[in-house]
């Protein structure tokens, strides 16, 4: 009885204060660490901890995207915490939570899906960690949850593709076949939207078929084989990515037609293979969707951490490549 009483007193009088003091000391150390980090601010981002939650490694485009971020981080001396979501949002959310727990200075997310981000973004906000979104937006009513969105404008890509067609394809009653990406995905929805906008404004053009080949080469080939049998008079093929266009080209050749001549082919992404196809005359035009946003992303991160205002939406400038400029650009393509 007495012994336990002493024990309790001992705990109260000795251990507790010592413990508190120790934790205060540790907190002090932590504070010191932060100070030293902020003193490094003059030299840009070097020594900063930045967490990056990537979607995964699902395509060549995505790998180029990851490489761009990683190499730029190394160049600037950023302590990059990289996490691949392996195609699952819950992995990304877990990664963001761990970034918050590690006390990073800034978090970059390339969201896999648009919804379901509010809770974890609120946690980041409470921890006063700014968030930058890459490639895709998130669906939230509270726009204070992230600092800025940085990426390509898929609708604009659709418009650029449509505009190239209006400028370069002659004739009346031009029949277009549209090959969509995965139904419901942001690039598929937006690339269709922008393209349809342009087509609807021009009575010369008409979309006769619009179906999905899931961004896959094999599906692009299968779908084109069917469409060629259904329609004998396709003038233009518009594919939401290069891969599907490559598959379709094989189907067109197997049907005894000349891709690029009998059927004008327009696609989006502009990966290196598409450039060689343009030079070979099999693709007429490809709209760039650049994955190399590392430099811009870290410019923006630097501004945010320096307390400067940044635009809410920063759009990468996308270029259009066709027979006039493909040969000049193919060697500089990295992906």
């Amino acid at each position, binding site marked *: 009885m007495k012994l336990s009483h002493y024990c309790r007193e001992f705990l109260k009088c000795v251990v507790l204060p010592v413990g508190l003091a120790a934790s205060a000391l540790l907190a002090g150390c932590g504070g010191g660490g932060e100070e030293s980090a902020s003193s490094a601010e003059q030299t840009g981002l070097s020594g900063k901890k930045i967490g990056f939650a990537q979607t995964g*490694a*699902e*395509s*060549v485009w995505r*790998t180029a995207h990851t490489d761009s971020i990683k190499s730029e981080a190394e160049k600037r001396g950023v302590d990059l915490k990289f996490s691949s979501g392996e195609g699952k949002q819950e992995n990304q959310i877990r990664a963001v939570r761990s970034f918050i727990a590690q006390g990073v200075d800034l978090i970059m997310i390339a969201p896999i899906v648009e919804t379901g981000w509010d809770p974890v973004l609120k946690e980041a906000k409470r921890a006063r960690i700014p968030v930058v979104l890459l490639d895709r937006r998130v669906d939230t009513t509270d726009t204070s949850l992230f600092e800025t969105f940085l990426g390509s404008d898929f609708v604009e890509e659709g418009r650029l593709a449509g505009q190239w067609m209006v400028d370069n394809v002659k004739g009346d009653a031009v029949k277009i076949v549209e090959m*969509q990406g995965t*139904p*419901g995905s942001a690039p598929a929805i937006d690339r269709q939207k922008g393209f349809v906008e342009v087509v609807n404004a021009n009575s010369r053009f008409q979309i006769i*078929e*619009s*179906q*999905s080949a899931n*961004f*896959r*080469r*094999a599906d692009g*080939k*299968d*779908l084109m*084989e*069917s*469409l060629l*049998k*259904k329609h004998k008079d396709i003038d233009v093929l518009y594919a939401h990515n290069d*891969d599907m266009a*490559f*598959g379709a080209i*094989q189907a067109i050749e*197997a*049907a*005894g037609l000349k891709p690029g001549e009998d059927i004008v082919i327009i696609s989006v992404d502009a990966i290196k*293979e598409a450039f060689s196809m343009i030079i070979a005359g099999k693709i007429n035009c490809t709209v760039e969707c650049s994955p190399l946003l590392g430099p811009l992303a870290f410019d923006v991160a630097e501004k945010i951490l320096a307390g400067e205002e940044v635009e809410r939406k920063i759009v990468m400038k996308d270029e259009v490549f066709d027979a006039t400029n493909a040969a000049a650009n193919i060697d500089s393509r990295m992906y």
Partner: protein
Amino acid sequence: MSTVSKRNWRENPLIWPTAGLALVVAFNLFFGAEFFSISIQDGHLYGNLVDILSQGARVMLLSLGMTLVIATGGVDLSVGAVMAIAGALVAALVERAGLGFFVAFPAAMAVSMLLGVFNGSLVVFARIQPIIATLILMVAGRGVAQLITTSDVIIFEDPVLEFMGQGYLLGIPFSLWLVAAIFVGMVLLIRKTAIGLLIEAVGDNENASRFSGINASQLKLIVYGVCGLLAGLAGVLEAASLSAADPIKSGELRELDAIFAVVIGGTALTGGRFLLLGSILGAILLQALTVTLYNVGVPAAVAPVPKAIVIVAVCLLQAPRFRTQISKIVGLRRGK
């Protein structure tokens, strides 16, 4: 006597995938007869029906292997990933290592078979549930394929591969000859020897078959190995038909198509009796549906729905219980 023959007719499991196919054909007859037009172009057959068979060749190969695995009471989820690995391997060996087809192809086949045997040994020796054991390779296999291609798509040029995937023999796609040869070979091996009986025995009751002297472990290893081999062949066919090997998208979700084809074809997932011809019919039905939907122009977002309805209908009709319920209802009405 007539009732007996009627029951036999209904109990023949091949009738339901055939009925499904008939439904698709009838729909197309009604909707657009150009679906059936077959012409000759550049000395080979050209038309939607040819496409269905040649595009369906990959799933047919997968479903043949899957049928055997399912007959032993297992399942192989890794076939899609094995497709990717085999395609990547052939492409890497031909294009990057500069080896000829006759080195690259056997190598890819050997690796695919070993991957199948690896699945089998997880099931047999480690006693892991087949669905989990093959899930391992399904997930890891994509990574392996990406390692082989260094996460790129490999584009290759090889005359033999091109012929395999895109060529024609006597006006018929070569891939179909290949599938037909394998199918006939398997049927002969399975029905003219005791192997088919042994596989069914293992699937029906593994313990009983072991007590009766069947080497169930060895049999399972062989079956998983064959499934891996056929998956690899399907992967090489896919790569060959595109002249490109994509480690990420090749064979994506194909394992589900293969399982569908087997189940539609009348082989029960619980194992036991199996029907190779049924699985082929199932694979053709799946591809016919896909092509029909393309042809009709069903919007992409809703295209899976009609596909699912046909599949559910065929599966329900296969269930004896559902059929008795239906015939009771029909009988009641008639009785009135």
